[in-house]
């Protein structure tokens, strides 16, 4: 697996930064938790997962981030994101400026309609809400997004790590549906972007 930062205590360079944003109820926070668990529990890397939220448990802006490094992580939040997953226009507008040049941008095109300076990033458009709806429940939008994200960051972690982390962080009765939605996300990227 890709070594990040060479295990030294580094400042901003030796970090791999992922940000997921949307609105309350889309499962944004769970995705961050799963990624953090995957990196730290199953890949043995150091990672910090943080979240920011408004008082609204539904509908309000919501953001979850994971900073990964083989070394020590001091500043816990994203400084310049390597990967940005945007599940709503509001979230996209709020954080696109902090995605680094050439960074990976994964959006749901049905809610993020206008992407300014598209050529600055590696853009992937996945209708996560629609796909989740097709698997039977919009609630699994975040699992679809996680599945779509995996092939784009597979240099940094194994699919098994993500699956095991999902196993630990979703209610047991939803495990099967989550795994199905996750697989659909991977498939979509394979079919549309050959990754």
């Amino acid at each position, binding site marked *: 697996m890709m070594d990040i930062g060479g295990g030294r*205590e580094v*400042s*901003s360079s030796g970090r791999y930064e992922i940000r997921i944003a949307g609105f309350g109820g889309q499962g944004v926070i769970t995705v961050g*938790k799963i990624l*953090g*668990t995957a990196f*730290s*529990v199953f890949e043995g890397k*150091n*990672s*910090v*997962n*943080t*979240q*920011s939220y408004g*008082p609204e448990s539904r509908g309000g802006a919501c953001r979850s981030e994971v900073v990964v490094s083989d070394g020590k*992580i*001091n*500043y*816990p*939040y994203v*400084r310049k994101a390597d990967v940005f997953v945007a599940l709503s226009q509001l979230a996209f507008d709020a954080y696109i400026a902090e995605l680094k040049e050439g960074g990976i941008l994964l959006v749901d095109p049905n809610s993020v309609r206008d992407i300014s300076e598209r050529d600055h990033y590696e853009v992937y458009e996945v209708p996560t809400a629609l796909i989740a709806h097709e698997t039977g429940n919009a609630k699994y939008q975040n699992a679809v997004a996680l599945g779509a994200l995996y092939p784009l960051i597979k240099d940094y972690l194994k699919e098994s790590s993500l699956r095991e982390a999902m196993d630990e962080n979703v209610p047991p009765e939803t495990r099967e549906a989550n795994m199905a939605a996750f697989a659909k996300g991977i498939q979509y990227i394979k079919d549309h972007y050959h990754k």
Partner: protein
Amino acid sequence: MAGPSEKNLLKPGVYYLQGNQACAEGAITAGCRVYAGYPITPASEIMEHAALRLPQVGGRFIQMEDEISSASVLLGASWAGAKAMTATSSPGFSLMQEVISFAIMTETPLVIVDVQRPGPGQGYITTSQEDVMQARWGHHGEGSIIALSPASVQEMFDFTIEAFNLAEQWRTPVLVMAEETVAHMREPLTIPPQDQIKVVNRKKPQDLGISPEEFLPYGHAMVPPMANWGEGYNVNHVSLVHHEDGNVTKYNRDIHLDSVSRIQQKIEGNTDHIARVETRFLEGCRHLVICYGSVSRTAVEAVMEARQERGIDLAFLRLVTLWPFPEKKLREIVRDVDTVFVPEMNLGMMKHPITEALRDRCNRIVPIPTLGALHSPEMILSKIYEELK
């Protein structure tokens, strides 16, 4: 055979927990077996974790009707021999001040975690360091306090254990002044084998061969031994000015001055044992950043970058304990610097004891205030570069 409390402790190893959860696990590891709490963002997860875990280790959890009653539970529990804790956030912390004052005067070991959020009033629900003065001066009356400032999920675990140890060792309430940043953050947490974790228990009169008849609940030593209810020591807990035996009549000013001074000196006089600071790049530095809590994670990154990119001779000092304030230690290690930067998530609070301590050790103190969110490295760096042009 280990009783329920040992059997269900977290096995040694690496976990990926939220700061709030690590805090509750730290309390359990330290021997906390009574938890009382009340819902408040951003501290509720500590209570929720305690509600789940305490019965598993033979402890008892209760959700009380408010913060005043939650804190009051700790007095009764501690007097009845248990290690007890509650966690709240800034508005609830204000409500608990009377109990803290009471715990200081009755020398009652207990732990209160304050996951700070912005104020005043409802303020907001994100991160803050705006309660650090209330921690020291919020309770009515004299007396001192011990307050720790965790900056990571590991420290939310370690410092909660340390808080109980300090409370039991010095017979005093101890505050864990956490911040929403570390409370809601998830990071790897290493839990060492149980026998490698130091757990301190209060000294009891029985341990010192003091019989109930000879026992002075507020006597015998700078830190009096503590008798638990139910063990036949007929101890009266009183917080009116009292003699060593707890007698509150025969008021006289000398007893008043002596007893309250002892209670204060018990903490302030032992700052060297209690207080801790961390320093980096201090040798021959020209300038210095002093910080605490989660801000220290931004500050250390800014210091490294300022040194690497512009070769600025900048050192880093972190207050691990806020109170008792380590003035003597600061004056020993900071001899002669030009500018001292003090980034805080408030409008300038710890800068006051820092200014007093380094009055003749630096040319100027430059606060870097912000509210409601962690400083970004750029915020601190731009101030440093601007001031040191």
